[in-house]
């Protein structure tokens, strides 16, 4: 067995290696790939293409249509603190802010989080509810795919052989009067993995009254994604539908939480029983909706919403 290693500084060179070496896999921060192999979860690939020095994959830009384009190498640390993300795609900042530790957030990338295809991947729920689209490239082609369709199962993606590179993610501008939040159940205050997580996106009509409260508004549209309850991150459509046209209050959020829990089929494992997971889906969905609705109404809910929502640090 011979190990191969490349560290190209141009996108074309990386694509060249990926096209010609069937065993080649990209590595960005390595916080999944390398750490996972050290833990014996999966051996390191025979051939590794380090993509962290490729300028085409780095950086972020705002497009004229208001969407935000994030290079695959965008770090969690950047997502958690960039003004644009915090103000407009707040759920994404919520998610990135609670990934691992400061070291994990500095090293781990958005591209790696998506392509690792974990059902617990933190940023994916927020990207799904935002309607984000990923760009996948091979040496010969390029295609756009909704982030919701990238993961096909734990550790599996829709990328075809040779199409192993995600270059960027486009997150469309959120509509007026909307807000989003990501809330996960966590047993300790850092270095956690989602036992269950929920992303909520809420767009309000009639918007906030002069007092900033959402109470008199109605929900124009709600989107909910559930993390770590299924082989991939899923939308809770039944719960979403219940919310349209309702006023954004605790009863509505609780009902949506129940609908989401009823539609999920969580498993029992070392982290939680299925029964507890199901009950917790109700909680995190309701809390994420509450945080998102407040943000939609212009209230300040600090990032990360998890801390706020669990009442630990308001």
């Amino acid at each position: 067995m011979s190990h191969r290693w490349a560290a190209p500084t141009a996108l074309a060179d990386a694509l060249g290696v990926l096209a010609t070496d069937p065993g080649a896999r990209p590595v960005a921060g390595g916080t999944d790939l390398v750490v996972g192999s050290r833990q014996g979860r999966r051996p390191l690939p025979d051939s590794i293409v380090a993509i962290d020095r490729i300028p085409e994959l780095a950086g972020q830009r705002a497009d004229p249509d208001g969407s935000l384009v994030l290079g695959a190498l965008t770090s969690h640390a950047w997502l958690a603190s960039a003004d644009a993300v915090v103000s407009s795609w707040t759920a994404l900042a919520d998610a990135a802010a609670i990934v691992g530790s400061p070291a994990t957030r500095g090293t781990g990338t958005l591209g790696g989080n998506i392509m690792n295809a974990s059902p617990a991947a933190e940023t994916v729920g927020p990207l799904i509810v935002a309607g984000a689209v990923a760009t996948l490239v091979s040496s010969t082609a390029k295609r756009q795919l909704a982030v919701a369709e990238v993961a096909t199962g734990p550790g599996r993606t829709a990328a075809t052989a040779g199409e192993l590179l995600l270059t960027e993610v486009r997150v469309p501008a959120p509509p007026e009067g909307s807000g989003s939040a990501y809330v996960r159940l966590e047993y300790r205050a850092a270095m956690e993995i989602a036992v269950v997580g929920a992303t909520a996106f809420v767009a309000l009509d009639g918007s906030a009254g002069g007092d900033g409260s959402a109470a008199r508004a109605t929900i124009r549209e709600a989107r909910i994604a559930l993390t770590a309850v299924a082989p991939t991150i899923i939308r809770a459509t039944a719960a979403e539908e219940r919310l349209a046209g309702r006023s954004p209050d605790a009863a509505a959020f609780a009902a949506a939480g129940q609908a989401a829990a009823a539609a999920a089929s969580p498993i029992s494992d070392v982290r939680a029983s299925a029964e507890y997971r199901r009950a917790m889906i109700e909680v995190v969905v309701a809390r994420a909706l509450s945080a998102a609705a407040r943000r939609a109404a212009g209230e300040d809910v600090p990032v990360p919403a998890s801390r706020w929502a669990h009442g630990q640090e308001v």
Partner: protein
Amino acid sequence: MTATIERPFPRADGPAKATGQADYTGDLTAPGMAHGRFLVAGRAHARIRRLDVTAARTRPGVFAVITAADVPDRLYASSGFVADRPLFARNVVRYEGEVVAAVAAATPEAADAALRAIEIEYEDLPLVLDVERALQPGSPLVHENWAGYEKDGEIVAEGNMAARSTIVKGDATAALGAADVVVRERYVADMIHPVPIEPHAILAEWSGDRVTIHSSSQVPFAARTMVAETLEIPQHRVRVVVSHLGGGFGGKCDFHYEAHVAALARAARRPVRVVFTRREEFTMPDKVGHGMVVDLETGLSSDGRIVARRGRILLDCGAYAADSPVLGQIACMEAVGPYRIPHVDLDARLVYTNRVPSGSVRAPTGPQTCWAVEGHTDELAARVGLDPVEFRRRNLVTAGDEGPTRQLFEPNGALRALDEAARRIGWGSPLPAGESIGIAAGWWFSMPSASGAFVRIDADGRGRIVTGAQENGTGAVMALAMLAGDELGMAPEDFAIVYQDTDAGPYDTGSAGSQTTFNAGRAVVEAAREVRTKVIAAAAEMLEAAHADLELRDGAISVVGSPDRRVTIGAVATQVQDDGGLLLGAGSGTAPTKPEHDASACVGRLGFEAFASPTFFCQAARVKVDRATGVVRVLEVAAVNDIGRVLNPRGAAGQITGGVVQAIGTALTEGTVYGADGRQRNAALLDYKLPTAADAPTIDVGFIEAPAANGGPYGAKGVGEPPIVPTAGAIGNAIAAATGARVRRLPMTPERVWRAMREGSDGAADPGGPLAPAAASAGEPASGGAVPVGASAGNRR
């Protein structure tokens, strides 16, 4: 005395550790070194049908593959209690991490490949995982040949019961019968891991017939003894040296894998190093905190005084006894707690199972038992309508009270620690919504044992201390310089310390049992006093003064009242050397004795039937419970301790702060989950959840100084273990105060808290009927007193 002690000083090992320059055992290399790996069973109980290492031996880069066939055929008793264990599995494997073979190869990859080339076939045997069923007649046995094992004469064993200890005083049956109120409860604690951040690492290097073993050990002398015994070589040919140790928490106490690596290096004819992976650190640390079942039955008078307690305790021993036989006794003493109880009947059984061996992890059995006792104490208080603090005030021991085996207590800080902890946490003051407070008291022992030291002052006027003591990171060895300096009028920085090398220092028990300052401190003081006598004699001549008129201060000797009649200690040392002498001192001191007591009614007396120089402590925790999820955040802990005279306040506070954080893990998130196949399901740091820095609360440390008359140096007691004992109890009581639900499973995970809130309790509440009186006879069958989980479980509230 008091020139240097009680003042903060910089630790000698601090800069190297803080800058990353300190070498840990896993950082060491030796020329030509090979990489060692172990083949472990990977199954919990099986007979080895076939084992063939021929193919593995012929693989490229492989220097040696060894098995039981390559070491002396003998069973060992790592702590002298029960000889139940071979170095490498012979015929049977009894837990998933049991070592079957070891490989030395040029690279770790070649070693791994050789492991895979070992051919082995197993026949699975019935698993023993449930401590209650293990004691029933007809249970499969973990050790078929238990009766034939050599063991300590005090050990009472039977089938899967590896040992039994009782602590008995008075007539508990009669007293419980006459009590106004009797409360029975069952508490169940999961197994916990010590999880030092530095994994086990060993580098063995032979030179002729002598072997030097660098080991991440907390007990180098015990390791040396056992290497010599298991490999049948004389002890003087074995040298165990410890580099900086990255934490141990008991996980590196006892003898582990030093002999395996020494045998491997001998077979490979070159140095061999083994460094554990994190997974191995979970599956084969050889030392975990016991899973426990604690049944308590306590009688009260209507005015809230405890009149009697009966307790039945089961300790999950794991596959081998190691040092656990003594720990049932400690559990019994902890189950009495720091309370005045006239009639006690405590019975602890240590039960073999197909799990990783348990042992003396920091305050062994303490956190689990104290958590049970202190939860029980709050339930008792509630039954007689008393405030938890007031209830404890009525029952805590004070000077002149009798302990569980009638030891007489000296003046101590138990009551003042209670009041001070309550005051610091704001007991009784209004709290923000959702917050609550719980309190827990406890006691622990100090451990007299042998230790020795050499102290000298060289002609440069600087001191050297040579000690056998072991620095596991607490700073206890570093602080020996403070004690020597105090005797000699020098600063701690004036001393170099040679430590944790069995060829250099005299015998020491190691960093175990909170004993370093207590015993090594005494040895250093005695050695320093010998030097002091020589310094004074020489200085008296140089200054033409009487011995009694001299004082040692600031590195010089001067005549009291005439500060300009003065010589530096360096000048004295130079003069002595010029005259053909040297300033050398040696000491071991006399170990304090245990208090008088009467353990005639107890069985399994292995040394803890009375607590020497007991420490007393109380912690109060303020928590916030998320009632929807069961997630508990600890916001503040007030930790007040009587550890006798506080010699090194910074070091002692460090022990308490670290202990509280570690114990928050024990309380809330740490616990090993086993599958039905007897394998650990959370053998990694993602799912075995240690508290992080972000989980650490505000910790308010207080001391009540009650110097021990018969204690360590200047009246000190032990401090390393006590701080982790009461935290889980305080948190459990705070959770109960917040939710009205008692969580009787440890750790009190979010799911368990959530269930307890929904069900009013977690279904483990009542042992199901009065506890059976202990038969005093040593020969009582093991199953006789096992307590069934009763039908009445959970119906108390």
